[in-house]
């Protein structure tokens, strides 16, 4: 039942700026994902993303080097305000984007109706973890690939693969903020802006860092203190889901949702390939080109080594990760915390 139209082991890499895109292409990415400078993508951060002319040039550069470009148009348009998403899709199609990553059924329906030949990938933001959900998107909108939520074990992915008519893409490295993907409203609750509709998780304009004379660091989002770190502790991203909080049963403060930790599936790559995972995704469009260069070149080598039957570890990437801790998350066990 499964459809495989491309070679297995595709490395899908992040690019927040044109310079990062060229860095990812040069470092060996098979595909690069990126977004426009507006609310149509889930990394709508200040100074990040692409203008229309930048995207056009980026697509040309990537295609000259045999690399695909995937447009992240993976936020949910508020009712009656879909024109921005339609414009993004139309522009991307004109530029020859290789696939559009969507979460919203309205956006997916628009692509199917107006650009029936355009390849569609289902974003992790759609939060589709079951055969029934994935088949719905494939049958109704012609989705060719699903980016799975990070809540499934490898046996579950293997079982899923048998019954769905599309490719599977999995996150293998980077930020490990699961929550209910595409459903998180914590930023909305605190700041009034929506991660899922405005594309901003913890908008920088609401983030404050305060360091005292002893180098104790307090991170805040809006009116809420997220965490406090002593001078010897490593802070994480200023997101509500990675904060430490006091509760009646935990008066000392604890990670109520997730911990500052990063995903690293280097050791599970062979099993993921056996399970039928087609493409491997690196998180981090908000990161610098130094990060992109190091991470993409390391994973390029790792995937090539695994395809050649060798073991890989990639422990050296720990220095780039949030919290300087890594996990295999639900891919290894449902009890990852």
């Amino acid at each position, binding site marked *: 039942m499964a459809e495989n139209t491309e070679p297995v082991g595709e490395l899908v890499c992040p690019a*927040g*700026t044109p*310079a990062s895109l060229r860095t990812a292409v040069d470092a060996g990415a098979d595909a690069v994902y990126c977004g426009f400078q507006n609310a149509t993508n889930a990394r709508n*951060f*200040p100074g990040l993303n692409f203008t229309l002319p930048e995207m056009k040039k980026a697509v040309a550069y990537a295609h000259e080097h045999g690399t695909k470009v995937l447009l992240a148009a993976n936020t949910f348009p508020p009712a009656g305000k879909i024109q921005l998403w339609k414009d993004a899709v139309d522009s991307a199609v004109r530029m020859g984007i290789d696939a559009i990553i969507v979460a919203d059924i309205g956006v997916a329906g628009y692509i199917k109706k107006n650009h029936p030949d355009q390849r569609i990938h289902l974003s992790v933001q759609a939060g589709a973890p079951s055969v029934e959900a994935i088949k719905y998107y494939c049958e109704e909108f012609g989705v060719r690939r699903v980016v799975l939520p990070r809540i499934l074990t490898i046996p579950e992915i293997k079982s899923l693969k048998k019954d769905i008519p599309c490719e599977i893409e999995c996150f293998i490295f980077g930020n490990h903020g699961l929550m209910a993907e595409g459903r998180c409203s914590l930023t909305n609750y605190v700041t009034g802006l929506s991660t899922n509709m405005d594309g901003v998780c913890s908008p920088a304009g609401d983030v404050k860092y305060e*360091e005292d004379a002893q180098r104790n660091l307090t991170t805040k989002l809006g009116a809420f203190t997220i965490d406090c770190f002593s001078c010897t502790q490593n802070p994480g991203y200023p997101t509500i889901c990675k904060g430490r909080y006091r509760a009646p049963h935990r008066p000392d403060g604890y990670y109520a949702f997730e911990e500052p930790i990063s995903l690293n599936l280097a050791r599970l790559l062979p099993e993921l390939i056996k399970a039928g995972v087609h493409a491997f995704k690196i998180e981090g469009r*908000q990161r*610098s*080109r*130094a990060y992109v260069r190091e991470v993409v070149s390391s994973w390029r080598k790792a995937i090539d080594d695994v395809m050649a039957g060798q073991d890989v570890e990639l422990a050296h990437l720990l220095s780039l990760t949030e919290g300087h801790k890594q996990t295999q998350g639900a891919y290894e066990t449902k009890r990852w915390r």
Partner: protein
Amino acid sequence: MMTAQADYRSETEKQEYRYLPRLLRLIIAPVPLFAIQPVLHKIVHQIAQKRPELFDRIGPHKDKLFLIDPVNLPFAFALRPNPDRLSFRAYRRRNVPQVEARIAGTFLTLLDMVDGQLDGDALFFTRELVVEGDTEAVVCLRNAIDDIEGSIAEDTANLFGFAGRNALKVLRKVRNHGRKH
């Protein structure tokens, strides 16, 4: 508006003090500011001329004043990244102006960030980079600088010809040595 905070000394900084050639500090410390300002003016205007795209990404934050604070040098630098009234000036720490945002780290850490060799988020995770004030403005400036192809450090070194290029080569060697030990 915010005022620059007191310096700090991380392990990296102590290490860098060990490796940064004392000669550089000895040369820089007594230099009067009036002698430095024209050099900084030349550097920032040269970058602006060569890399105009930088300002598009800074967008609404171009009129803000950023304190770039290499904590192990005797000066800090105030940058206003507006192409129409661009300014980049050095200040003794006791005289730094009020700024909207401060970005602090050791000299070579900041140099490597500008050079596209180190990741700002990773430096923040290890406390090697300190950000204070308007976080959105800092993120914008960081992303704008990171989108510049090539190296601002090399552009600056080239302004000073053979001597500048050799100085950069030495600084990079020192940095690489420091990172390995």
